[in-house]
């Protein structure tokens, strides 16, 4: 699947998504893209740039606000031989589409005896900060990870954004593809062409001795900051970017825990009954004798998310939270204050370039 090393180009996560869309639609004319605003002036934060111009309005089209039907329409088109990509500007909107996702897409193949398939991708973007508030910021990947029949993908790097989106589009199953808004403007090198990253394989972002960190999506960024910071304090970790939360790459996690004996799980959703809980649970059961300390997790609070910047301050765990938890996990005092002090822009935006509204 993944191609021989080809030309790489620096681009943002959003550009990488766009690149994947263009690539997919170029190599397979059964791929199409629909959703509110996919052809509007903003082009879904740039991720659908140029699609309408290249592939026409038959394959790239705006829709009525009707998430449940739109999901089912994707299923039907998939059964009709297409590979639909259904784009949603906020994850929260697809709460309206759960019947079609769970009773429909996830079950179709199994319940009809395995004779057909529903190759479609639902792109869902998770908001955060700048007053996104209680219903524009939820990430319910943990729900989907509970559902047999779905695959759930959460890229962190621009490279993976492209590679995983291409793999998702050409996977023969319904895939929920979750993008964190705060990643869209991060950049990195991205291979050109039909570059695919297999679904279900986690990736080591760092290798180390003292603990295993398993992280999803944006929390990998905070974990990298934390580990950079800890370098000088003599703490190293395996940092595993999970990349898919269904299926989960248990082998890599287990391998690492065998080595380190300590587990810290980072998740971008609420804490209770989460993917993070699943990982702690499974490792506690399966790697019981490998563990030398109680496994722990860092998630979002088990609360709805507030709007005011005065209330979101401290709401989202960050690198310094991670350092503090590692400190208790490895039983060693570690310096973290300088990390918090470093940030030069307000806590509720991804960077200085941003001036709202999302």
């Amino acid at each position, binding site marked *: 699947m993944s191609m021989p090393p080809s030309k790489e180009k620096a681009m943002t996560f959003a550009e990488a998504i766009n690149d994947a869309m263009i690539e997919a639609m170029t190599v397979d004319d059964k791929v199409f893209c629909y959703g509110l605003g996919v052809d509007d002036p903003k082009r879904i934060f740039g991720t659908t740039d140029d699609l309408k111009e290249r592939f026409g309005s038959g394959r790239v089209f705006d829709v009525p606000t009707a998430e449940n039907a739109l999901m089912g*329409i994707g299923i039907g088109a998939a059964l009709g031989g297409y590979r639909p990509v259904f784009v949603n500007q906020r994850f929260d909107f697809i709460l309206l589409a759960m019947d079609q996702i769970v009773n429909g897409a996830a079950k179709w193949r199994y319940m009809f*005896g395995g004779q057909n398939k529903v190759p479609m991708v639902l792109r869902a973007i998770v908001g955060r900060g700048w007053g996104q508030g209680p219903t524009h910021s939820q990430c319910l990947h943990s729900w989907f990870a509970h559902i047999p029949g779905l695959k759930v993908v959460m890229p962190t790097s621009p490279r993976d954004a492209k590679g995983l989106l291409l793999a998702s589009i050409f996977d023969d199953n319904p895939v929920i593809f979750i993008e964190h808004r705060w990643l869209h403007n991060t950049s990195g090198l991205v291979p050109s062409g039909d570059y695919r990253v297999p679904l279900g394989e986690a990736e080591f972002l760092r290798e180390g001795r003292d603990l295993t960190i398993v992280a999803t999506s944006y929390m990998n960024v905070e974990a990298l900051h934390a580990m950079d910071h800890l370098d000088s304090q003599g703490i190293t970790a395996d940092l595993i970017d999970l990349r898919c939360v269904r299926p989960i790459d248990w082998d890599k996690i287990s391998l690492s825990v065998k080595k380190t004996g300590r587990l810290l799980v980072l998740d971008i959703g609420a804490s209770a009954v989460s993917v993070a809980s699943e990982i702690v649970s499974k490792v506690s059961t399966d790697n019981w004798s490998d563990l030398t300390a109680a496994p722990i997790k860092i998630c979002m609070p088990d609360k709805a998310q507030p709007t005011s910047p005065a209330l979101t301050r401290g709401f989202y765990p960050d690198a310094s939270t991670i350092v503090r938890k590692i400190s208790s996990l490895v039983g060693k005092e570690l310096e973290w204050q300088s990390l918090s002090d470093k940030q030069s822009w307000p806590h509720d935006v991804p960077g200085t370039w941003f001036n709202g509204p999302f």
Partner: protein
Amino acid sequence: MKINKKELLFRMARIRKVEETIAEKYSEQEMRCPTHLSIGQELVGAAAGMILQPNDYAVSTHRGHAHYLGKGGDMNAMVAEIYGKVDGCARGRGGSMHLVDQKVGFMGTTAIVGNSIPVGVGLGLSIKMANETRVSAIFLGDGCIEEGVFYESANFSAVQNLPVVFICENNLYSVYSPLAVRQPKGRVINEMVHSLGLKTFVEEGENVEDTYNCMLDAVTFARGRNGPVFIEISAYRWREHCGPNYDNDLAYRTEEEFLDWKARDPLDTYRKSLLETGQISESELCELDEKVCAEVDAAFEFAVNSDFPDNAEAYIDEYAP
């Protein structure tokens, strides 16, 4: 186009016979799944099956036997499915509410009210994108109309001018609930749907040939890329909502109402009228009945003799490879 009347009668009779046989044998406790019979409502499935082409798509609901059989679905595979056998159309995984026969474009029935509607619209979208001349038929009941997803789907099909044929059997009830507690007084379903932007057709299901012609007109319209159509046909379910029995004793509807509809049974009426007008002979009818019986008997024999799926099959096909 002239109606092949004997064929239409045959198709209705065939559906009736399967359904009655299921009802008869259901109490043996060998068909262990919720089963919604089409007895009294054979016409729409039968006629649709003659009007639609094999490569036209169709989807349906919990009450899908007639539509599946009408569209050309494999009877053996249907009965085996209800028996939970490996030769069932879904290998026993779906049961009565999950019929599928992709060879004849029958893409599936699902058990959540309204759930298959957008799927049918999506199939219609795939037809449009591929620039084909097929249509996608969506069978639904008067209750399905109430789900928001119907409205969203109808709207989308109109906006995109899709070759979609909504076929609504209005049998007055959703489970035990009459229309009065579910839809506004004076609501005429097809008129409401017309205002959503669909071309609409309506016929009384007791008028067999009129119903056929009405459905033919509708399908022809959609096939001509003139946009989605909605057909409303009146019908009446004779037996209980789910299961094999009569249930008028439950008093959610009156025995008189039932008898009134039964007296206008499309199958019986049509049979008599073809006979009386000399369009079919007694001996042809005999032959027809024998053919139907033989086919249905064979299907049950096939199903009963089919193996159960290996238990391990419960755990496969979560994902396509």
